[in-house]
């Protein structure tokens, strides 16, 4: 490939091969400073690199929202569909050409809110697509409204007294249809990379929920000073569970 980025410094040359998967000319990303979406992009690139995915066999699909812009950064054929419809678009692609690896990167509001019904049925059909859900528990692009994964009691723009509703139990939906489900956070980098790599290899529908920080429209309202503090809260709040086949709300792990 001709786009390998090398960094020359003295007699040391380092090759950042994972950046091959991104359109270099489009960086920096348009996300806010401290946004975790960039880390997820990097994670997906690394997993793709491990599995030797290429422009010839991979398609990236996303929906709408901050994370909906992800697909456009990949140096692949990519689709930025309408709000909530990344899953049916991906299913159409996979069915029309099963040789393609179809990866969805989108947000929790997109995949679980407006597009929740499609997830339900795609997992029922067990279409062989990989979904990476950037779960920042907020509608970031529109200013910080409650999303389907907002924790109970959490303050958002639309729930100033704290969210009264329970967050969606994605695990239960995917488990019911024997699909691959993993929960991880951007802080648990190696774990997240493992989750994504395994999900890309999984035959059938796979769903990786990555807890990601949105400092601008979520963190600040909840009292975090910066993105780092939010990432540290993932370190404190989430423990890796590799033993049982059900994850508690404060656990991360893989369920196949």
């Amino acid at each position: 490939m001709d786009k390998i980025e090398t960094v020359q410094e003295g007699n040391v040359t380092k090759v950042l091969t994972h950046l091959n998967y991104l359109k270099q000319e489009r960086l920096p990303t348009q996300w806010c400073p401290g946004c975790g979406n960039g880390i997820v992009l990097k994670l997906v690139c690394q997993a793709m690199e491990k599995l030797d995915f290429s422009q010839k066999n991979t398609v990236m699909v996303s929906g709408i929202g901050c994370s909906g812009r992800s697909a456009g950064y990949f140096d692949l054929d990519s689709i930025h569909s309408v709000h909530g419809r990344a899953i049916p678009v991906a299913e159409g692609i996979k069915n029309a050409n099963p040789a393609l690896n179809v990866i969805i990167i989108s947000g929790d509001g997109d995949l679980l809110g407006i597009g929740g019904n499609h997830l339900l049925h795609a997992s029922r059909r067990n279409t062989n697509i990989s979904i990476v859900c950037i779960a920042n528990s907020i509608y970031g692009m529109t200013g910080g409204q409650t999303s389907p994964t907002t924790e109970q009691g959490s303050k958002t723009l639309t729930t100033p007294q704290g969210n009264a509703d329970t967050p969606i139990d994605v695990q239960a939906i995917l488990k019911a249809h024997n699909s691959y489900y993993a929960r991880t956070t951007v802080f648990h980098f190696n774990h997240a990379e493992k989750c994504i790599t395994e999900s890309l290899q999984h035959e059938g529908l796979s769903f990786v929920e990555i807890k990601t920080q949105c400092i601008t429209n979520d963190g600040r309202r909840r009292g975090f000073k910066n993105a780092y503090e939010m990432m540290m809260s993932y370190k404190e709040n989430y423990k890796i569970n590799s033993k049982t086949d059900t994850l508690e709300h404060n656990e991360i792990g893989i369920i196949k």
Partner: protein
Amino acid sequence: MAKKQGIVSIDHKRCKVCGICVNMCPVKNYTIKNHKLHELGQCIACLQCERYCPDMALVIDIKNDKDTSTG
């Protein structure tokens, strides 16, 4: 014992000065001055910053020089 050293390259076009690396670095190798990220040359190549930088702005090259000190 060989002491691990890193050479830090900051891509200032990509860096949004979010401060994640400043807080992540165990040896306090980064500082922000005038809304710009600076590096202080103490990198031990733990790669935490490269990994968590959301903007792909940091590249750390590991330099494995033979240690010349007595320690």
